[in-house]
């Protein structure tokens, strides 16, 4: 009994060393030193208050999208369209920043709301394709991601191009009121952090303590039975997409208002896919999203340093992140397999 408990603990912790071993292997293949690389990543993420601020900033969109994905995953939906929803949020917020020339507070409020609206609409589109077109949300969402990517590049190169000519650098910087205030000289906007945490708390309680959350859970576990029990499936699924999209859109608005101060082609920067990993790793429980997001954000902020100091590509951060999730899936499966074998043995005994 004690032995099996020890195995249990070891298996719970196993994914991390497994993922690190895999990453180290990749580093060794290209002739890098794993230890040196990890040291660089850690230093790159935490060496100064400025770096820590960057990590927190990188964390914000991951928390927002991760919380949103907890909603869609609870409803049994694979909303892989987060990337596009971030982009649409950024586009809507940029429109506000460019066209509404009011003081800071109303402009920022409008930008946040517009971003949420844009993301929600893009999310709903994937939902509508699923509900009325029976196109699986993975294909609908992915297709819409690429369409959104095309849209943002078109905007930057055509109607919103810079005064001196279109470039991949993005639009002209926003007017001053459209910049989210940062904490002194650090690149972190307290308002963004507050918004992310507030969204997380709201999602946590919405999933636990409301009819809406219960109905989503029922739809996710058995769609047909939930429908027959009277859960209005279409509106619930669409709201799940809309809520997740709104949070992703909020992340997009924050990215262009607090981080870049303009719209850039890479405004989503793969965060949508990364937040899917965050949500998978959290097993769709919002309370686990912030620590995981923090870990991923640290990897994301720390790994570009490898390019500067070790001439290694920063995508190693992504390798580590994905391999952690893969290792968790494999180890979970392995534990379930062991449990099944044990149950069989006990039955035979």
């Amino acid at each position: 009994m004690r032995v099996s408990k020890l195995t249990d603990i070891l298996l719970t912790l196993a994914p991390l060393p497994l993922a690190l071993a895999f990453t180290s292997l990749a580093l060794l293949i290209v002739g890098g030193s794993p230890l040196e690389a990890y040291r660089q990543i850690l230093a790159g993420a935490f060496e100064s208050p400025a770096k820590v601020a960057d990590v927190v900033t990188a964390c914000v969109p991951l928390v927002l999208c991760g919380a949103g994905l907890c909603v869609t995953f609870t409803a049994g939906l694979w909303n892989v369209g987060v990337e596009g929803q971030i982009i649409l949020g950024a586009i809507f917020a940029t429109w506000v920043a460019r066209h509404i020339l009011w003081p800071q507070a109303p402009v920022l409020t409008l930008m946040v709301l517009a971003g949420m609206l844009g993301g929600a609409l893009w999310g709903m589109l994937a939902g509508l394709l699923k509900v009325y077109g029976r196109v699986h949300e993975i294909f609908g969402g992915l297709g819409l991601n690429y369409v959104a990517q095309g849209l943002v590049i078109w905007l930057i190169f055509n109607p919103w191009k810079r005064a001196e000519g279109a470039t991949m650098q993005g639009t002209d910087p926003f007017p001053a009121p459209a910049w989210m205030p940062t904490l002194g000289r650090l690149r972190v906007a307290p308002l963004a952090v507050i918004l992310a945490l507030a969204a997380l708390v709201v999602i946590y309680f919405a999933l636990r303590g409301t009819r809406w959350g219960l109905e989503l859970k029922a739809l996710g576990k058995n769609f047909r039975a939930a429908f027959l029990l009277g859960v209005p499936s279409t509106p619930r699924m669409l709201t799940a997409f809309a809520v997740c999209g709104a949070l992703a859109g909020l992340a997009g608005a924050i990215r262009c208002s607090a981080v870049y101060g303009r719209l850039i082609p890479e405004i989503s920067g793969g965060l949508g896919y990364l937040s899917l990993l965050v949500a998978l790793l959290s097993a769709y429980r919002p309370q686990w999203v912030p620590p995981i997001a923090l870990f991923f954000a640290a990897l994301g902020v720390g790994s570009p340093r490898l390019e500067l100091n070790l001439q290694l590509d920063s995508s190693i951060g992504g390798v580590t992140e994905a391999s952690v999730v893969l290792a968790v899936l494999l180890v979970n499966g392995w534990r379930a397999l062991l449990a099944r074998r044990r149950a069989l043995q006990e039955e035979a005994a």
Partner: protein
Amino acid sequence: MDTSFLIQTLASIVAASTPVVLASIGETISEKSGVINLSLDGSIALSAMTAFAVAFTTGSVTLGILAAMAVGAFVALVVAFASITLRQQQVAVGFVLTLLCADLADFLGTPFVRKPGPEMPHLPVPYLSAIPLIGPILFDHNLFIYLSMLSIVATWWYIYKTQPGLKLQGVGERPEAAFARGVNVNRLRYLYCVVGGALVGLAGASYSLSIKLGWSHRHTFGIGWIALAIVIFGGWNPWRVAAGAYLFGLFKALGSILQRNPAFSGVPTQIFASAPFALMIFALLLVSSEGVDRLLALLPVRLARALDRAMRGRPPGGLGKPFVQG
């Protein structure tokens, strides 16, 4: 438009469709046996990078191809292990692998970015390539293109005409019934998932060694998702899947012809870049939307059934579900 231009265009469509054909045929084999290998997009990128890196380092295109197929097969093996032996969600495993492979390809491929490297040699088929019209379109290419055409015929013939093919269908369709007939369900699922993965690897190799030479970041750009959608569009039937892949190639070629046409110079290039994915959504709508059901219901029953049969395929009954004995 003169004939030689038309022939040239058709030949280039046949060539350019090769990776999509290979990947979607590979995925068809895997899904026919009941395993969804969702990792295609990453798997193709990783195998394309491997093919180029190995060919570049060793100077041997053959070794590059073999290495790419091994990579594709290995990724598929991970999918098979996680979903068959460990009974994890196939979609989750596949999706994570997509991201992992794509990042891994970027990381490991950095030293090879935009380097000139070896290329699959051009190899017209003797005699056949001399046939007017058909010859230059189908038989004046390199080995990849012939392999892709062969894979269509061979897969169809294997699945529908041979005994192991019947078993392959059975395992995907109703694993319990296959088991009752003495078929080792999980072993076959492993086998066909890995074989399908090897074809996906070949698709990657055809990319970096023939269609879009060399390696760069985001080199394969979403082609795996297109291939996955084409399997659905083609109703899990090799001929129709291949037709879908070539149709896609045709649309892409039309796009680039339009793009070069001065009349369309006002249309921004980004529209053309995202068009394939909009097309993908539209194609899936066409085969699965309820609206199409309603339109079909307006037709006479016989015609509606025939059209339904011609246009749509049913997924294998056991697709995506683990087989548990007893």
